[in-house]
């Protein structure tokens, strides 16, 4: 049987999909891809369902080898160099790894997470409808943990030999939009203004549970203890030290710190891909605007199949050349030593 073998991989890399829904009432968080648009783009390139399980690759390099036959994969998300046997390949395209050859991927540039989708998907045993890795709960399939060198994925033979690229939808830059609440009344107007008017940077001590923010200290009106209530992806909680934390898909399902605001669903992937140390701002929007943006985002996801383009060898090489030039200005997104921070530092209870 044909396999894709993980030849090398850094931390913070795991199988992720659209997430595990329906068991948050039992304390089981959703997990799932940090950047769902990129997950969907990679899957669309190889004909998979948009939120099928694929390999979420953290900020560091990785290598994958095809064994006992060719394997077609596609790469999207944070930009990085990609080559097979010395041949440079472009982001946002499919590629076939011949039997015995290795796809080598460099560090993420201008982002944190890339997605490698495998044609035919990933075989595994679903729990609550998902293969997504949740290491704390011991869930995820085929491996209930971050990936390690030597891990294998069973694959199907490629369907034909046409490669494709996808015109990634333009993502407007600009502030990360939030809806104030649910506990904005635990903060003074001045504290909320400081939160909205300041420049923030994502701390290198961030992970799939939460992104810590470096910036001014946000003070509470009545202290930092509230009786725990439910959290969502994008909840921005402010613990005792006044440094906000944006909760990400591996969050605790409940939390006992006041939540000043929530990142809108359409902007969460963009925040997830903001490199540590890069300055950004928040902007408060109405619930109406947030829900309109959720609809636009859904439309954008639905448009992905229409954005597929056939590629031939010449076009591939032009793209590859462009990609290789970009690679010259590479900056690592996050520091390797910071990606195994004890989760307890992020949470209380």
């Amino acid at each position, binding site marked *: 049987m044909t396999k894709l073998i993980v030849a090398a991989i850094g931390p913070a890399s795991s199988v992720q999909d659209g997430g595990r*829904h*329906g*068991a*948050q*009432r*039992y*304390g*089981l968080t959703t997990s799932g891809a940090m950047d769902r648009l990129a997950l969907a783009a990679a899957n669309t390139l190889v004909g998979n369902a948009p939120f099928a399980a694929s390999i979420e690759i953290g900020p560091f390099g990785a290598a994958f080898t095809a064994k006992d036959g060719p394997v077609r994969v596609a790469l999207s998300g944070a930009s990085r160099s990609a080559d097979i046997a010395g041949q440079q390949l472009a982001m946002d395209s499919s590629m076939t790894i011949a039997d015995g050859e290795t796809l080598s991927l460099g560090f993420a540039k201008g982002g944190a997470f890339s997605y490698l989708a495998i044609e035919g998907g990933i075989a595994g045993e679903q*729990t609550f409808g998902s293969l997504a890795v949740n290491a*704390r*709960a*011991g*869930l995820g399939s085929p491996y209930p943990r971050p990936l390690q060198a030597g891990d294998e994925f069973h694959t199907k033979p490629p369907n034909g030999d046409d490669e494709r690229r996808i015109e990634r939808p333009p993502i407007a830059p600009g502030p990360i939009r939030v*809806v*104030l*609440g*649910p*506990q904005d009344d635990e903060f003074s107007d001045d504290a909320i203004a400081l939160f909205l008017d300041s420049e923030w940077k994502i701390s290198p001590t961030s992970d799939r549970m939460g992104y810590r923010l470096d910036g001014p200290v946000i003070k509470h009106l009545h202290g930092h203890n*509230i*009786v*725990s*209530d*439910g*959290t*969502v*992806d*994008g*909840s921005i909680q402010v613990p005792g030290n006044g440094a906000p934390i944006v909760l990400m898909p591996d969050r*605790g*399902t*409940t*939390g006992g710190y006041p*939540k000043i605001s*929530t*990142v*809108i*669903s*359409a902007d969460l992937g963009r925040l997830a891909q903001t490199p540590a140390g890069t300055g950004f701002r928040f902007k408060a929007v109405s*619930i*109406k605007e*947030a*829900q309109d*943006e*959720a*609809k636009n985002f*859904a439309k954008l996801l639905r448009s992905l199949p229409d954005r597929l383009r056939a590629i031939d060898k010449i076009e591939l090489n032009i793209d590859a050349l462009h990609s290789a030039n970009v690679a010259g200005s590479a900056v690592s997104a996050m520091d390797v030593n910071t990606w195994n921070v*004890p*989760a*307890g*530092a992020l*949470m*209380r*209870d």
Partner: protein
Amino acid sequence: MVAAPSPPRLLLSGDCAITVEFAKTIDDAANQRVLALDRALAEAPVEGVAETVPTYRSLLVHYDPLRIEFEALGAELLARAQQPPSPIETARHWRIPVTYGGENGIDLEDVANALNTTPDDIVARHVAGHYHVAMIGFSPGWSYLSGLEKFLTMPRRTNPRLTTPPGTISIGGIQTGIQCVAAPSGWHLLGRTAVRTYQLHRDPIFLLKPGDRVTFVAVDAKTFVEQDRAAEAGAIVAELVGQ
């Protein structure tokens, strides 16, 4: 005629969730209203609601804004929260074995000292309690119980531990809890149970539900080890003493 209960507050949790807040504090009456609204949504689902998360004082309602918008769902939730709750199905009652103190409950002596009593008295008081599952959250199967005797109220530790063992039975504030997987915690560790409130490949995967009644029974460390082995193999270990 009984006055209608005061309406809950609707709080925005982004564009895909509403927090229906019944109280700001830990309050049994509020928790009953949370669980009643949760039941009402389970019995007659609202189109577009994806899942709900009951907590001590609020119900978090996750929904799909493409199928129902904030205004419409908020109005529906307020209307339902004002309706008299449907009759509660008789709560299940679980008896959970706990080995207290020693290496399994490293804070028992400190708690006794802080409360000017003996470890045996702490255990006797904790075992005498009648609790119910107010919420399950934070990490898989972590069950927050209400009904802790006031005497056992302790502020959380100033320095939370980065990890505490699976099966930990602890107290924090006016709550006691059953923890399932190893997790960070700022609570005081009284003991451990072999009961897995969450276990993959077991039916049911999650043992306890919000609203279930719980009492504890003290067992010795040797029994804990035996029960732990049985639980690892899939035994439930907790005793269902009543429906």
